[in-house]
């Protein structure tokens, strides 16, 4: 049972969140200039890293904000969290 630090609500139990998938995949800035290969990569290709990974989580039963979470997939350590449009490293 993970304890996830919501940037707005503080540390909350994972039952308040839903997992939102790989946050390293960014929706194309200019969809009209995006090639088929880039769409394919964005929609279908996902890394399955052993170690640090950046994911979206949705505080769906809390403040309803999406956040980015850097999590270690081998230890389940939550390393940093940030708003969905924020920077995990600051």
């Amino acid at each position, binding site marked *: *049972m993970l304890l996830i630090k919501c940037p707005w609500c503080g540390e909350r139990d994972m039952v308040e969140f839903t997992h*939102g998938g790989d946050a390293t995949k960014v929706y194309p800035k200019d*969809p009209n200039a*995006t090639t*088929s290969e880039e769409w394919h990569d964005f929609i279908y290709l996902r890394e399955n890293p052993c170690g640090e990974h950046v994911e*979206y989580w949705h505080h769906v039963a809390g403040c309803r904000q*999406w956040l980015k979470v850097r999590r270690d997939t081998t230890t389940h350590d939550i390393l940093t969290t940030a708003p969905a449009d924020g920077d995990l490293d600051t």
Partner: protein
Amino acid sequence: MTGQPWRLENGGHIDRSCSLSFAFDGKIMEGHPGDTLASALLANGTRLVGRSFKYHRPRGIFSAGVEEPNALVELRTGNRQEPNSLATTTELFDGLEASSQNRWPNLRFDFSQVNGALSRFLPAGFYYKTFMWPANLWLTYEHFIRKAAGMGIASRESDPDRYESRSAHCDVLVVGGGPAGLTAAMTAAEIGERVIVLEQAPHFGGWLRREKRTIDGSPAMDWVDAVSTRLSAMADVRVLTRTSAFGYYDHNMITAVERVQDHVPKSDPFLPRQRLWSIRAKRVVLATGAVEQPIAFPENDRPGVMLAGAARTYINEYGVLPGRMAVLQTNNDNAYRSAIDLLDAGARVTAVLDVRDHVDGHLPNQVRDRGVPILQGYGVVETKGYFAIRQVLARPLVGGPVRRYDCDLLCVSGGWAPQVHLHSQSGGKVVFDAEKGCFLPSEARQNCVSIGSAAGLFTLKDCLKGANGDDVPEQAIKPTWSLPNAPGRHGKRFVDFQDDVTAEDVALAHREGYVSVEHLKRYTTLGMGTDQGKTSNVIGLAIMAKLKGQNIPAVGTTKFRPPYTAVSMGAMAGRAVGHHFQPLRRSPMDNWHHDNGCKWVDAGLWRRPHFYTRPGEDVNSAALREGRTVRAGVGIVDVSTLGKIDIQGPDAAELLNRIYVNGWKKLAVGKARYGVMLREDGMAYDDGTTSRLSENHFIMTTTTANAGPVLAKLEYYLQAVWPELRVQVACVTDQYAAIAVAGPKSRDVMQRLIDLDISNDAFPFMAAAPCCFAGIAGARLFRISFSGELAYEINVPADYGQAAWNALLETGREDGVGVYGIEAMSAFRIEKGHVAGPEINGQTTIGDLGLGGLQSEQKHNIGKSLAIREGLIDPARPAVVGLVPVDGKTWIKAGAQLVENPDAPPPVAMLGHVTSIAYSGELNHPIALALLSGGKERAGEELYAAFPLRNEAVRVRVVSPHFVDPDGERMRV
């Protein structure tokens, strides 16, 4: 005390002044408060308590705690019958009913004991090998095997008791209330930390209750009572007894089950039977103690063979003599405490067999001084007795003549195993200590620490702080896991009593290549019983290590997994049972539907009226009647469950442009528009109408099923992808009751209730406006139609939903207003060819659905780029078509496959499938929608809707999906 021949006159933490009556296999016996079922059975001289899992061998009480592999019983009867309960931890109460299990017809004459004689046909890997026989044979054997190899029988009735869950947070969680745990808890409490202490037993003290020990010169229990009383009185300390921590999860989350009322004869209805605790702790102290390990010697499973520590527990904690003539087999000094306690309690100890060659410790010498022969370098090679042990045969380990000792109790000790389960579950590592002969917790993964016996520190000096125990020096243990048979003998050496796994089974697994501990476990089922291998895992892997010629660290141990002790399903479920299993969402008019004969249908968490019954009607005739009322006059339906999302902000129209396939910027204020949204991969996702209430304010409707997911997606795009858009979204589904009013007379009825002019000119098709409806302010009117008739949808604040509904029924009475349910509504939409969930199934594009024309070319939207992939615009893709039965009367089955010739030999090309079916009241025959490959070009063709499971094939004609009023004239009048 004639009824309890093995009860001692003195000693034990029991209340001899009070007698409790209980039954075991129907025999009435007596015990005392403070007893467990096991101690009471022993006090009454009951040695045989069960039959083993596979061979049905007679088994007795082996331990005095959670490690018990044998004494599993069924407790209670009727709807409270609970199988596989440990007699050794079940507290006795007056009227307790228990019975032995896995025997037929009874414990002494068990039909399946023949399995023992057939044991060479039931080797390790028996199940795997059986599966590999011809598969159809397994079907024959399964019934016999499941009946023969089994555990207790659970009640088939529903559990009448209540369970609950609680969460708690603390600075320090101490698991275990023995000397180390109490010391740690007091240390933390004294510096003001919030402390929770869990003790699985009914009382604190751990092994101090079970031995005659002193602390600071007084009985150790005085110290326990003083410390636990003080702890209980402290404000920030929560003390929980009868509470077993069974799981250690991520981020210092511990789960524990508190047995609130398992020990009371008659339960208090205002208390739960058990309570599941989820405790999040900053720091965890594991003072979980250690469990004594046996030694696998030949014929080591007879009733009367008992862990040495258990024997002195029965004497010291329960005042029960476990045997009158005892032999002790040991490899350590500690077990001699049992010999001393047995002698003090008046038993004879005929011999101590010690595998060590030179025994000269403080405790052994006390035993020797009392005239008990200590045979150094000796081990058991055989035991005699069937329902109870009566003789031990021992022999020097280096070989030599066999000696025989009569006995009724054989105590065994192979040393102590620290209970590292929770430490390991938390991700911590364990290491094997060759000197102590046990696994110890090492590096912790989470903020936790193991102390006392759980860390392999077995003396009181290691556990106490500021107090002094009566430790005595002990000689080193000689790690010993199994003892050999005498030459030519083949006595079974049980490693795992509960699963009937022997040392020979481990050897067989080794010969057959299952040498990794994880394979060994699964192949032999070693350690897979309800005891989780607490007395067997280490022995099993030690035997495997020896066979492989490796040391124990090289072989390693299997991962410890929750639960540490068995947890009832009731505790896991808590309150989430019956109609509390999940929340039920009810519309504001739910009570009215209920009172007016509605049959419900589930729609996610909602319940919606399926149809309203009248005598003699079934779903089809009721829906047909309801539908005709609408088509002929006017009807109302509750559509409050549709998702409603309020969208506000200067960029609201831009957001809709990016979400929906069609354009929204030019939508006038006071207008509604139908929209479809796609998934990012280009497939159709959801549809609904969205209305512009003001320049920067829209109200979106979604399907009932997608209300939550669509909102989450909007939030995702606004927060993660387009944070620059100035828009806010909020779910208002529950804030409004929604009623669709449909039929040619709907305008007449509505006009009488509303403060707007709703003539066709003033309020045309797809108009939307705020209004006052039936005196209800804050209402919204939409002229939208799902039925294809002239129709309106009125939204009012949820609290006024019933008032609005009543007003419509009252005002519409002279027009013959009726109510209709989902079934009739669904028939309307099928008649109109409106797609819904069965067609928007995640595999269809808007082109497939006949909605391709909605796609705006002026802008981008989610999914647009991928929707034009080659495969998604293939003309052979399935398209929505209508079907009618060629004979004009046969129902078409939903889910039927469309084929050209149902009698053709397989494989038959599947051209598509039937998605939705209805009986058209307008056309007076069954109709259907289907997804048909290349369907747009197939109008007029005749196919078969084949349903091979029922051996049915209906001849159907492909038609336009717009069965009724294809040009939509009715809704525009």
